[in-house]
């Protein structure tokens, strides 16, 4: 896929009002995550107990948490953790899923059947359950969370890639290429995978939204990023106990998750419309 061909749909998605607003928010969050040390007003890990539980004020725009740390700072650093964990683990999952799915779809046979059985099996199990099993094995923390997310969504990308490959494999131009003597690897990498790329990448983008929620949920359980490193989920792990005293400590990180995930979904929808791949995503 050439650069122009991949940018055009994104530009088209950005030209719709909803796509533009969603894209703007995502750009803002990504910038905040990348530039966290430069733009954050305070240090994320220095406790300042006399200033704890402060509601939003000019000094602390979003207030402070139970240890007196600036909430805006922690949300900015939290974006860094939450986004990088979700994006990296989904990227690995997409890559592994494409390899597995392409191999299963292209080679067929026993390997395909084995992959299909495992994928179908994990399909009916909720991601959170798969993730909890992984966390049980690897242990809480950023690594465990990433492995959990990566494995939890692997089935989805494998399934999607496989169905895309199967759909394209029988088309005439593939037959033509084969009859002209093109090798299996050439056909797979030159024809099949590029055509399967767009739907899988969009699915990966939408899954990143789900992954942010999954990361937040594990963090909320105390199984994600460990203190003092903030992630949006772990910032809420003190839970309902704080709702009486300082609800903003719970509301604001959740709001960051919510708006980001909604933005990802809306932008993803705009992209799906721009790429015109709705039916291809639904087939899977």
């Amino acid at each position, binding site marked *: 896929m050439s650069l122009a061909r991949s940018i055009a749909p994104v530009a088209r998605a950005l030209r719709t009002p909803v796509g533009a607003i969603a894209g703007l928010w995502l750009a803002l969050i990504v910038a905040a995550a990348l530039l966290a040390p430069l733009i954050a007003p305070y240090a994320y890990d220095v406790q300042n107990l006399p200033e704890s539980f402060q509601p939003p004020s000019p000094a602390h725009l979003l207030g402070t948490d139970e240890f007196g740390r600036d909430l805006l700072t922690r949300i900015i650093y939290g974006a860094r953790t939450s986004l990088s964990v979700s994006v990296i683990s989904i990227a690995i999952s997409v890559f592994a899923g494409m390899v597995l799915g392409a191999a299963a779809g292209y080679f067929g046979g026993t390997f395909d059947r084995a992959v299909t059985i495992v994928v179908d099996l994990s399909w*009916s199990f909720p991601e959170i*359950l798969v993730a909890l099993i992984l966390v*049980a094995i690897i242990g809480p923390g950023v690594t465990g969370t990433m492995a959990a997310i990566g494995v939890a969504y692997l089935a989805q990308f494998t399934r999607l890639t496989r169905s895309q490959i199967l759909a394209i494999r029988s088309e005439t131009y593939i037959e033509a290429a084969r009859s002209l003597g093109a090798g299996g690897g050439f056909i797979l990498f030159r024809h099949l995978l590029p055509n399967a790329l767009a739907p899988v990448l969009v699915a990966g983008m939408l899954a990143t939204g789900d992954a942010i929620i999954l990361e937040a949920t594990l963090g909320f359980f105390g199984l994600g990023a460990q203190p003092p490193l903030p992630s949006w989920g772990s910032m809420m792990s003190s839970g309902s106990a704080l709702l009486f005293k300082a609800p903003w400590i719970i509301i604001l990180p959740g709001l960051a998750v919510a708006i980001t995930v909604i933005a990802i979904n809306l932008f993803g929808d705009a992209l799906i419309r721009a790429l015109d791949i709705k039916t291809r995503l639904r087939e899977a």
Partner: protein
Amino acid sequence: MLSYLIKRILLLVPVFLAVSAVIFLILHLIPGDPVDNLLKVGSSASKRAEIEARYGLDRPLIVQYGIWLGNVLQGDLGTSIVTRRPVAQLIGQVMPDSLQLGGLALLLSSVAGVLLGVLAAKARDRWPDRLVMGGVLLGSTLPSFWIGLILILVFSVQLGWFPVSGARGWSSLVLPVITIGLGGIALVARVTRVAMIDTAGRDFVLLLHAKGLPPGRILWRHVLRHAMIPVVTILALRIGWILGGAVTVEYVFARPGLGTTLIKALNQHDYPVVQACLLMLAIAVMLGTLLGDIIQALMDPRVREAIT
């Protein structure tokens, strides 16, 4: 129908074996010696020997799995490392709470989801449709634990209508059920809407109108019935997803249940409890999927025949 049922149940056996094997392996995949992981730090040598003998830890892995599965099937889920109580007893205590919560959430998801989906389909592209679809977007994208926390803040802390946490009485169920239900409602409403619109455009519906049947009867008896087939399919596939929501929400509302027990055990490295909770959740998911398939077969004569 009976032979369909038997076949469908037999299909679950390999699934159960595979899933239980994964859960069994947790103990061996975690870093460290399995015996250490089953004991409190500083346990005596005799305790170690007892554990080793009990789980057959000196035998090949496959034999160990056999021993473990045999124990599980006899209702022996091991002993909690932290509380030193039989895990089966622990699970038995919290199971009814989880079932109640999950069942009610499933009921709410199906009923409210279908009604909203029908409403949206009937008012296609007009404001009720847009309102429902907006709600669907929120319900399917907001993290459920956060919705739970917000509901607590508004209805328990601010308005004082429901208890903040715990599992005493019906009023303590309202917010958790709604919290889990929102995601399910969003899913069911979205699928119902699409299926209703799709079915309403089919030939046989046109002919029902041509037969002079009242539109209400066509909608509820024929179109909805058809639209329910994909809805039940999705619901069957995603029952586990709704039950998974229960894990999170139990923890938010500090309700006793499998979810809270599981999270607590994970944080305390209480592996026998972790395994038992995961196994129970997996069984619940499998039975839920089975239930969905059976309902689907009852609704569609073609599905029934294709399989028997």
